[in-house]
């Protein structure tokens, strides 16, 4: 009676060995892409800032705990100067990393979830459902979704309120996350649909259907795992877009002053007149961070695309 378990064990270890080899192969090819490594290093740097900002610059300064004079230029105590309330800009920027990265991550998750759901359903079920879903997708691709986001944000704020928090994230930021997700899923849905169309013709999907697997089961257990691997690069690029959108939405006043992201800091800098006063130290630090993180995600996304989708590799 021990034979079947032995086989199962061997099967498991063989699968593990193959997966490890796949990872090692991936790591080797990815490490050859210099821009991918640079990007990954930048992301790692900001990830550290986002996880432990208190260890680096202490707790987030507020109007009451501000440590300097108003709009002071950089000096030895405040290396990046202070804002219009006397708060240390370095302190604000480091704490901004956490808020920007968390919003970016959650907005990416919402975007990709909607895109994957719509893409798989449209591609797998097909027929008129596919036609309708793809019309809606194309509609969202053409639409100036940013202006739509401006309209959706106040509606959502009205519906879910702004006073409470979820897991320590204020409602205003939840609204931003949802708005980004609802307005930017379309390109993911397009990519997932085309992948689904090719996956559903493969033999293992036929086999699953023959042994009685329902559509729901096949979509979640057979199509989904195969799609996920193919949209990794796209997801990383979505992250870059999400951070840019968050920055823009915060800049025009939809952010939260109590949990300032980099975009919110830029809004505060503009509305306090910092650019007109030549106070570059107020908006340059969050600005440089935004450029660096978006650049990093773009570089990593491009490198991943090259490594994971080898058919395109010859072109570049």
């Amino acid at each position: 009676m021990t034979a079947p378990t032995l086989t199962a064990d061997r099967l498991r270890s063989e699968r593990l060995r193959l997966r490890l080899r796949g990872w090692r192969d991936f790591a080797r090819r990815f490490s050859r892409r210099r821009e991918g490594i640079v990007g990954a290093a930048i992301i790692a740097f900001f990830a550290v800032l986002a996880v432990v900002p208190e260890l680096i610059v202490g707790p987030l300064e507020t109007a009451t705990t501000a440590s300097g004079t108003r709009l002071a230029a950089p000096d030895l105590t405040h290396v990046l100067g202070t804002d219009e309330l006397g708060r240390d800009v370095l302190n604000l920027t480091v704490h901004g990393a956490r808020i920007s990265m968390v919003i970016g991550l959650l907005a990416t998750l919402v975007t990709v979830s909607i895109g994957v759901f719509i893409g798989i359903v449209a591609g797998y079920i097909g027929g008129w459902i596919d036609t309708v879903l793809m019309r809606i997708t194309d509609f969202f691709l053409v639409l100036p979704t940013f202006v739509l986001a401006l309209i959706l944000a106040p509606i959502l704020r009205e519906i879910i309120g702004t006073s409470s928090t979820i897991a320590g994230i204020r409602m205003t930021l939840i609204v931003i996350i949802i708005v980004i997700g609802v307005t930017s899923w379309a390109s993911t849905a397009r990519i997932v649909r085309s992948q689904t169309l090719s996956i559903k013709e493969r033999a293992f999907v036929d086999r699953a259907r023959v042994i009685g697997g329902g559509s729901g089961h096949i979509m979640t257990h057979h199509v989904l795992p195969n799609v996920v691997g193919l949209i990794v690069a796209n997801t990383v690029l979505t992250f870059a877009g999400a951070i840019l959108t968050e920055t823009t939405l915060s800049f025009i006043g939809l952010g939260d002053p109590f949990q300032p992201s980099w975009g919110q800091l830029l809004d505060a800098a503009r509305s306090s007149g910092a650019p007109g006063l030549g106070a570059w130290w107020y908006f340059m630090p969050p600005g440089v961070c935004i450029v660096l993180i978006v650049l990093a995600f773009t570089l990593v996304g491009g490198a991943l695309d090259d490594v994971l989708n080898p058919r395109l590799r010859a072109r570049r």
Partner: protein
Amino acid sequence: MGSYYLSRRLVQAIVTIAMIVALNFVLFRLMPGSPERATIRIPGVSAEVYQQTRARLGLDKAIFPDQFVAYIGTTLQGDLGYSYKYRGQPVSEVIGSRVWPTLILFGLGELVAIVAGLALGAYTGWRRGGPVDYAGNGLSLILYSMPYFLLGMILLVIFGVGLGWFPVSGMFNVGASYASFTDQLFDFARHLALPLATVSLGLIGQYSILMRSSIIETLGEDYVTTARAKGLTESHVLRNHAIPNALLPTVSLIAINLGYLIAGAITAEVVFNWPGLGTLAVEALTSRDYPVLQGIFLFLSVAVVLANLAADLIYGLLDPRVQA
């Protein structure tokens, strides 16, 4: 270009515009601060007055089809409702007064960016791996990663505040009277300089990246190898064989990205107080002037759909292979 292609594109554009109009209706019903709620909040309002207001605004009828049909009818006549902030001025008038500044800024910006971005992309792609490619591609990537308003603030601090070369706010000097039209035009151009530089630089990054990858792809095609094998000079191959073919996919990508780009570019207006649609949208957002916000959404969406239609038709004329 077959008539099938033409009619298909036309029908698509009409369907999309119909969807935009319908979405706008749904959004209006979800908006906070509907007239109904505003009336009921007035203390001591009698049920009679409330009913009369509802009847006057047509809110006592069913949302579908009565209210929807009435909405479609008025929207087709260009009636987008009334602004809250501008004391009952029609939305179409409020938007109309702000269209020209945006059109000038964005139109010129697009023009500069398309010419410069495509040229830069073609050159860096052609000289792939060289020093110009590294510098140009790096610069494009940085510009691509930078929000427009950040670029605007940097230009404002350097050229407006630091060097004092250009004014940093508005379209004209406040309260200025001009001796002649040329004086006025000159003042306008000086005010336009920094916002225009912001919009075009922001767009150049994206266009140059698109064109670079397109030209690299084209340079690997067989007909380019054939052209080289015939002994044509490199610059002749680039100008007469590679660039025309590389331009085609770029044209459609520019059109597809238009909606996305407009949205980002209008934030540049905010930095320079440029009195266009972007500034209007942000004003409307902060003062909760939802009819104006929706009017802008409707206007920009339709404009983008029409621009896409135009690009599709131009594409059909340029590329004889397009049939379906």
